[in-house]
């Protein structure tokens, strides 16, 4: 169930971290869940190099404005993304920041989670995006795991599916830990 | 004779009448007296006749300028396009219906200046179109400005002190860009015109048939080359038939070789696309 309707999700990270794929998975799973969805993204050179951004809006109603102004859920998977997209958040919004970011930036008002490390433990760093999705569904309950898995089966290359499904589980597990919940 | 009069070269007193191949409603042509374009057009129509082309299934496309008018006079399907772009239109026509025979009539400005890009890419793709290049070394329709084929030091209405540009050799350009049939002749060597155009049409791939032609109205007049007959003599002097030994293109010093420079069988573009299509049709993952 959506914590809020409409529910605004902003995922950000470095180009190459699979931010766009993560956003599409949320949108696809949201659609399967029965919501109306709109997914937009920053595009071009910055998506390949610098801070990349992808947004999804989920709602039971028609969605008029397609962009996210203040996210209810914000993910920052890299330092650049945190610096560029980390500020704006809705009241009562949830800000999730990758632990590595804290090495160089002071991070306030956020849940700091070692998603990249968790991804490495699962197999490869590139599945940090899916670890983050595990965190997302565990903490928000916006989308049920079964629809996210079904979206992954359609959109993730078969050779990588297994690793991604593990990453999803891993994300849920680390989100459950007390220290995370305590913020 | 006034400009715009019937070109006697299109309808010779002797020889077979090509009236069936002419779109009579478009006569007279707008070519000047003494212009070589009529000879080339006649050579093309005679090639159509000798090849027994189905005129309904033939499209003659032209660019803009004197040569671009040729499609109007040819009793085939005719497409008079934009300056330099005949081959781009032709690529669409041929790719959409490879059964059509597509012949492009283009000037030297069409080919090597404004349409240079379309020309080299057509050569590269090796699409089955025959490009007949009417090379008169000048822009005639617009009043005698120099072209990318005008030799150095020659005069035109925009090179009154002599041309400082280096010219393109269109045949050489075509070969460098990958055309699979490249030939050149002149309007002086009229008999060859028909033969080379025939070979070009028969060749399965991109064919360039460059024909050096005379523009007595501008190029001849400004450069004091005399009348049409004098200019034919000039064409003869400026060219030489290709010998058996290979041509050293760098050592030509203004003299142009004539003949068939390249005739090779290479996979053709519409064929390659058809193969791709067949391979995809066997896997049906549609919409």
């Amino acid at each position: 169930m959506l914590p809020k309707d409409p529910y605004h999700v902003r995922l950000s990270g470095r180009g190459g971290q699979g931010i766009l794929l993560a956003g599409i998975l949320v949108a696809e799973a949201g659609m399967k869940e029965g919501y109306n969805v709109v997914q937009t993204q920053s595009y071009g050179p910055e998506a390949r190099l610098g801070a990349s951004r992808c947004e999804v809006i989920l709602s039971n109603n028609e969605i008029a404005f397609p962009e996210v102004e203040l996210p209810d859920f914000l993910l920052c998977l890299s330092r650049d993304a945190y610096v560029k997209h980390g500020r704006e958040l809705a009241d009562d919004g949830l800000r999730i920041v990758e632990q590595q970011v804290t090495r160089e930036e002071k991070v306030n008002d956020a849940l700091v989670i070692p998603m990249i490390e968790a991804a490495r433990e699962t197999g490869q760093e590139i599945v940090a995006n899916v670890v983050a999705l595990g965190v997302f569904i565990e903490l928000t309950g916006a989308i049920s795991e079964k629809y996210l898995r079904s979206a992954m089966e359609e959109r993730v290359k078969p050779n990588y599916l297994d690793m991604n499904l593990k990453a999803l589980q891993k994300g849920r597990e680390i989100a459950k830990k007390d220290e995370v919940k305590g913020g | 004779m006034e400009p715009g009069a019937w070109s006697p070269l299109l309808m010779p007193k002797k020889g077979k009448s090509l009236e069936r191949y002419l779109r009579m409603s478009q006569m007279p042509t707008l070519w000047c007296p003494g212009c070589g374009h009529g000879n080339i057009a006649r050579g093309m129509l005679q090639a159509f006749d000798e090849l027994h082309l189905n005129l309904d299934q033939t499209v003659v496309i032209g660019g803009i300028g004197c040569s671009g008018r040729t499609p109007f006079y040819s009793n085939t399907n005719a497409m008079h396009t934009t300056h330099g772009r005949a081959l781009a239109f032709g690529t669409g026509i041929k790719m959409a219906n490879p059964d059509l025979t597509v012949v492009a009539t283009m000037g030297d400005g069409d080919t090597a200046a404004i349409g240079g890009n379309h020309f080299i890419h057509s050569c590269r793709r090796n699409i089955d179109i025959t490009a007949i290049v009417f090379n008169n070394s000048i822009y005639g329709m617009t009043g005698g400005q120099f072209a990318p084929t005008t030799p150095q030091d020659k005069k035109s209405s925009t090179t009154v002190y002599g041309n400082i540009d280096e010219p393109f050799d269109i045949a050489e350009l075509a070969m460098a860009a990958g055309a699979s049939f490249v030939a050149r002749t002149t309007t002086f060597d009229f008999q060859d015109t028909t033969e080379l155009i025939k070979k070009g049409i028969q060749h399965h791939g991109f064919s360039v048939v460059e024909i050096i032609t005379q523009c007595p109205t501008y190029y001849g007049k400004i450069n004091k080359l005399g009348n049409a007959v004098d200019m034919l003599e000039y064409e003869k002097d400026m060219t030489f038939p290709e010998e058996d030994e290979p041509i050293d293109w760098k050592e030509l010093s203004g003299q142009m070789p004539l003949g068939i420079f390249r005739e090779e069988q290479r996979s053709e573009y519409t064929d390659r696309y058809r193969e791709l299509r067949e391979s995809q049709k066997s896997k049906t993952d549609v919409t």
Partner: protein
Amino acid sequence: MRLIQGNEACALGALEAGCRFYAGYPITPASEIMEWMARKLPALDGTFVQMEDEIASLAAVIGASWAGKKAMTATSGPGFSLMQEHVGYAAMTETPCVIVDSQRGGPSTGLPTLPSQGDVMQARWGTHGDHAVIVLTASSVLDTYVMTVKAFNLSETYRVPVVLLLDATISHMRENVELPELEIVERITEAEGGEDIFGNRAFFPFGVGPRKVVTGLAHDEKGKPETSRGQVGERLLKKALDRLYVDRDHIVSYKNYQAGDAKWLILSYGITSRPARAAVDKMREEGEKVGLIDLQTLWPFPDELVQSYSEKVEGILMPELNLGQLIMPAKAAIEGRAPVYPFNRADGKLFTPAEIIEAMREIMYNGKLDQTAILEQRRNGK
């Protein structure tokens, strides 16, 4: 139900409409349309060509149309500028073809990945000379599909080039859609009178019916060039334009969103209609009688429609992602029946619903609009 990107919806609409030829040149934000067509056309017996530039792309499309295929290209502003030569050729030769322009900030290379509505005037007047052309736009992924089909249908019906204006946001955004069944206008290649005359609905391609003469010169009904008597060419232009004006009701589409009883109207199109709709929702909640007309046909400009609404409302806000383009024909149509307020930005950002609400309230309660103040205040984060 499917999750589809705007550009994908455009390609799917084109294939559904019977498009079997695509020629194009890569450009952001339109490239995915080309990528889809390259992937899907071969198995459908269609043809895809990546050309050497946009000039060649539209030339190839026109050539293919004359060779019997429904044909299209897609590009963005810089490529659309290059295509103008052949938009004119298509108009002069009455060749059905569809050109999609996914707008980005201009002029020149501009803002390559940010949305804009800056090509509205270019789509109508970009090529030299008077000419007939239809211009459509879309404000959602679903509408992109529907309007692409409509673009082909109108192009075949009236034998004119049809331009579909998208933008960087619509092109790249994904929405869940249920693709509807739509009526398709097939090309008629047999004329009732047995002869192919320019401008007739029937359209014989090369190789079918009588041999054709096609030219960009002014010509008579049979295609014969007529360059000394200018009235022949003028007759051709007028005939083509008249066809569009006579059938305007069939060509014009728009969406009425709470405009029926509105006292204040937002007149917008394309992506800008999305924040406009959000603004209407919000203002209606607070009892303010605001409505929206979301134009889908931009040219011929739906002047009767706009006129009739202007008689019923007290003021009209026209937000556009350009510095004031469609407001020109709108004002000409409204002729002072209601005040029309421009609201413009060309900074690569969409209007937000809050900005539109603020602008609307200014005109409702103060009778004026200082648009710079609203936009600057938000840009500065105040």
